[in-house]
């Protein structure tokens, strides 16, 4: 198992970051996202919004990976999120539904308003392979490297959406 965590502060307020997060597909930094559907969406009595989305992502197997095991380099991802507009917190957990024996990546991310009215993003990821054949460690390390690179792209994607929202609201930072 590989574990990774990172925090990051957006200068924007929580509500705009939360909006950008849900609007983040499609964007030029997420061309690997093929489809994204809302499977269920409900409001809880406590005022939170709970959403399940099903996302299909394109992937690429590393060259050293044995041929013929993964027939298509696509992966279904489930994203469960909860938005609490009173506490100003978004919590979101995503994980891949297929190829889980090769590698499962579980990511949890929170967006919370901080004392300065900015938005703190905290991300944690667990990367587990049960592949065996002496490749488990190599697969997990590869997954971790990819996760870190993707996180950077993902943040650029959210930042781009943020600037588009700001522009449309004509509220320069």
């Amino acid at each position: 198992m590989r574990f990774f965590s990172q925090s990051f502060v957006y200068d924007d307020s929580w509500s705009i970051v939360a909006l950008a997060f849900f609007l983040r597909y499609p964007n030029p930094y997420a061309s690997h996202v093929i489809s994204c559907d809302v499977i269920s969406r409900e409001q809880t009595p406590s005022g939170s919004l709970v959403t399940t989305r099903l996302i299909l992502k394109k992937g690429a197997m590393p060259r050293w990976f044995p041929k013929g095991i993964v027939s298509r380099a696509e992966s279904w991802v489930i994203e469960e999120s909860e938005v609490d507009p009173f506490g100003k917190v978004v919590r979101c957990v995503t994980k891949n539904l297929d190829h889980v024996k090769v590698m499962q990546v579980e990511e949890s991310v929170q967006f919370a308003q901080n004392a300065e009215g900015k938005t703190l993003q905290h991300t944690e990821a667990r990367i587990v392979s049960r592949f065996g054949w002496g490749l488990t460690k190599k697969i997990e390390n590869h997954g971790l490297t990819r996760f870190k690179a993707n996180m950077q792209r993902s943040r650029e994607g959210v930042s781009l959406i943020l600037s588009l929202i700001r522009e449309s609201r004509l509220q320069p930072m």
Partner: protein
Amino acid sequence: MSQSLSSECTPLKKEYDSCFNSWFEGYLEPAVANSKSPEVRAAYSKQKADEFNLKCGKIWEQYRTCVQVQQAVKEKGLDKLLQQAREENPLVDPIPPLPTQPSSK
């Protein structure tokens, strides 16, 4: 807004998404922020749910039915995986505060 998993549903999805998004912008900023009162939260939840149903309820039903009728989810063998994932990871609220978050109270 990205594609639906079934191309038949993509136009409905796009219409739903844009309706939801404009509702969501308002939802994110309750007039009484940071309320711990269950009554205030419940009233807000009810009010926003009614507003959503009025504005987007119809398109949401159409979009959801489309995805189900296409049986895209089932055909792709996802229903079991989905069920499993949700049992493993049930969401319960309210959300506990971040341990690393400086208190905003």
